[in-house]
C-alpha cells in the first residue's frame, strides 16, 4: 500500500512538472470570459448556459487528461527503459501499475476540485448580479449543491476512462491506446441503442449479441446527469448509489485485467 502511495505521489508530481494543471487556467479564463460575454447572446439564459458550459468543460478537460496522460503511464516507462530500474526495486508489478493509476486519479481529483471551486465562484458572482425577479424564475439557485452530484459522477467516469487507458497502455502504443480508449468511451455512450437493437432487427441471434455487448461495454451514459441537475430534476440517491457501485466494480475489473496483462509482459 505504501509503495502504491509513493508511485501515485510521483505520478502527481510528474503531471505538475509536465504542466498538466495549466488547463485550470484555460478553464478559469473560459468560464470568466463566458460569464462576461454570454449575457448579450443568450436572451436571459446565461446562468443555465454557464452551468452547462462549466459541467461540460470539467468533463472535457478531465477526459483529455485521463486519455492522453493515461495512455502514456506505462508506455513511457517502458520506452525510457526506466521500468527495468523500477521493477528491480522491492516493488511488485501490480503495485507499480496501481500506483500509476491512483497517481493519475489524484491528479484528476485535484484538477476537478479546483475547477469546481472556480465554477461555484463564477456561479455565485452571477447569482449576486442577477436581479431578484430573475432569480425567482430559476428552477434552482445558481450555486445549487445538486450540481455536485453531476460532478461526482463525472469524476467516476474519468476514473473509469483512466483505468481503460491504463489497460491499453500495458500492451499497446500510445497512439493505438488513445484510439481504443476514445472508441470505448464513444461506444459506451451508444449503449442504449445496443439494448434497443432487438426491436429493430428480425434476427433474434443478432439481437441477443447486441444485448450481450450492451452488458459488456461500459455504460458511460449512466454517468451523465448534467441535464437533470441543471434543470433541478430529481436524481435519486438510489440511482447515484447503483451508478457508483457499477463504476467502481467496472474499474476494479479493468484494473485487475490490466494487472494480469502487465504481469504477463516480458521485460527481459
Amino acid at each position: 500500500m505504501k509503495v502504491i502511495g509513493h508511485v501515485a505521489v510521483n505520478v502527481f508530481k510528474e503531471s505538475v512538472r509536465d504542466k498538466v494543471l495549466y488547463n485550470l487556467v484555460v478553464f478559469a479564463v473560459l468560464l470568466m470570459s463566458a460569464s462576461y460575454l454570454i449575457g448579450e447572446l443568450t436572451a436571459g439564459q446565461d446562468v443555465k448556459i454557464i452551468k452547462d458550459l462549466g459541467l461540460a468543460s470539467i468533463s472535457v478537460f478531465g477526459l483529455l487528461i485521463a486519455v492522453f496522460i493515461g495512455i502514456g503511464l506505462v508506455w513511457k516507462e517502458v520506452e525510457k527503459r526506466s521500468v527495468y530500474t523500477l521493477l528491480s526495486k522491492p516493488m511488485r508489478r501490480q503495485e507499480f501499475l496501481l500506483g500509476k493509476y491512483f497517481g493519475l486519479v489524484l491528479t484528476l481529483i485535484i484538477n476537478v476540485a479546483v475547477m469546481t471551486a472556480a465554477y461555484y465562484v463564477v456561479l455565485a458572482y452571477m447569482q449576486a448580479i442577477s436581479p431578484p425577479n430573475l432569480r425567482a424564475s430559476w428552477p434552482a439557485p445558481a450555486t445549487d449543491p445538486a450540481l455536485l452530484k453531476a460532478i461526482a459522477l463525472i469524476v467516476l467516469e474519468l476514473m473509469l476512462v483512466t483505468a481503460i487507458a491504463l489497460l491499453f497502455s500495458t500492451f499497446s502504443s500510445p497512439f493505438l491506446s488513445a484510439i481504443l480508449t476514445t472508441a470505448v468511451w464513444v461506444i459506451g455512450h451508444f449503449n442504449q441503442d445496443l439494448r434497443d437493437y432487438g426491436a429493430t432487427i428480425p434476427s433474434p441471434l443478432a439481437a441477443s449479441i447486441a444485448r450481450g455487448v450492451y452488458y459488456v461495454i461500459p455504460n458511460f451514459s449512466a454517468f451523465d446527469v448534467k441535464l437533470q441537475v441543471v434543470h433541478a430534476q430529481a436524481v435519486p440517491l438510489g440511482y447515484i448509489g447503483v451508478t457508483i457501485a457499477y463504476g467502481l466494480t467496472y474499474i476494479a475489473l479493468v484494473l485487475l485485467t490490466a494487472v494480469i496483462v502487465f504481469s504477463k509482459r516480458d521485460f527481459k
Partner: protein
Amino acid sequence: MKVHPAAWAALVVLFAAVIGLQMIQADEPPLATPDGVSTNMLYVRSPQILGRATLSFHALLADIYWIRAVQHYGGTKLSTAPNKQYDVLYPLLDLTTSLDPYFDVVYKFGSVFLAEPYPAGAGRPDQAIALLQKGLRTRPDKWELAQGIGFVYYWWLADYQNAAMWFNRAADLANAPDWLRPLAAVTLAQGGNRASSRMLWTEIARNADADWLRDQASFRLKQLDALDGIDFIQRIVDQYRRRTGVPPASWDDMMRTGLLRGVPPDPTGVPFRLDPADAKVTLDPSSSLNPLPSAEHPR
C-alpha cells in the same frame, strides 16, 4: 538560436498586412444572393442524429442552438433585406428542445416569435403549436405548455374554441394557476376581449423568466392601453360632432371647446392622430405601437 531581426520585422509587417486586408475586406459590400435563396445554413436537421452525435453534451449543444436561434431571429428581424426569411427558426428551436426537453424558455420563445406575423415574426402559428405539443408529449404535466398552445390559438389565430379548450386543459394540470379556468370560460363565452387579453398578458409578464418576454408582454399591454385610449377619445370626438354638427378638423378645435385640455398621447407618449376627413382617432404612424391588434378581434 538567435532570431534574425529581419524575421521579427517580417512578422510585424505580415501581422499588420493581415489586419489591414481584413479591414479592406470588411468595407466591401456583401455579395448579392438571388431572391428567395436562403443563406441560413443548418447542416444537421435531424434531432435523432444530433442527439447521438453529441454523446453526453446534449445540454451544451442545446445552448449553442438556442444562441443560434436568438441570433437568427434578431438578425432577421433587424435585417432590411427584402427577401429576409425566418426559415431555420423552427428547425433551430426543434433541435434545441430535442437536445434539452427541459429548456422551458425555448417553448415560450417559439409561442411568441414563430407565431407573430411576418415580418416581425415567422408568421407560423402552426409551427408554434407543433413545438409546444412536442414539449407536452415529453412533459405532459407542464401546464405552461398547454397554456402556451391556448395562447397561440387565442392571440394569433383568434380561434377561441380551441383556445378555451387548451386553457381548460392547462387548468386541469397540477400546479396550474387559478386564473386559467375563468379565462377559459370567458374565452368560450365571449371570444376574445380586451379584459381577457389584459389578464393573459399580465400573467405572462408576471411569470416571465426572461427580459424579452417581459418586454413583449409590456408592449402588448401598452397596445391594449392604446386601444382603450382610442375608444375613450373617439367617444369625445363623437360628442364634439354631435354638439357642433361637424367633425373636428384638429385637436385644437377640441381644445377650444374645452372637451380636451391637450393633445392626447398614446402610452409611448406619441400624440394620437385625428383624421379630419372622417374624424377617426388612430395611432400616429410614427408610434412604435403599430400595428395594433385587429379591432374586429377585440384582443
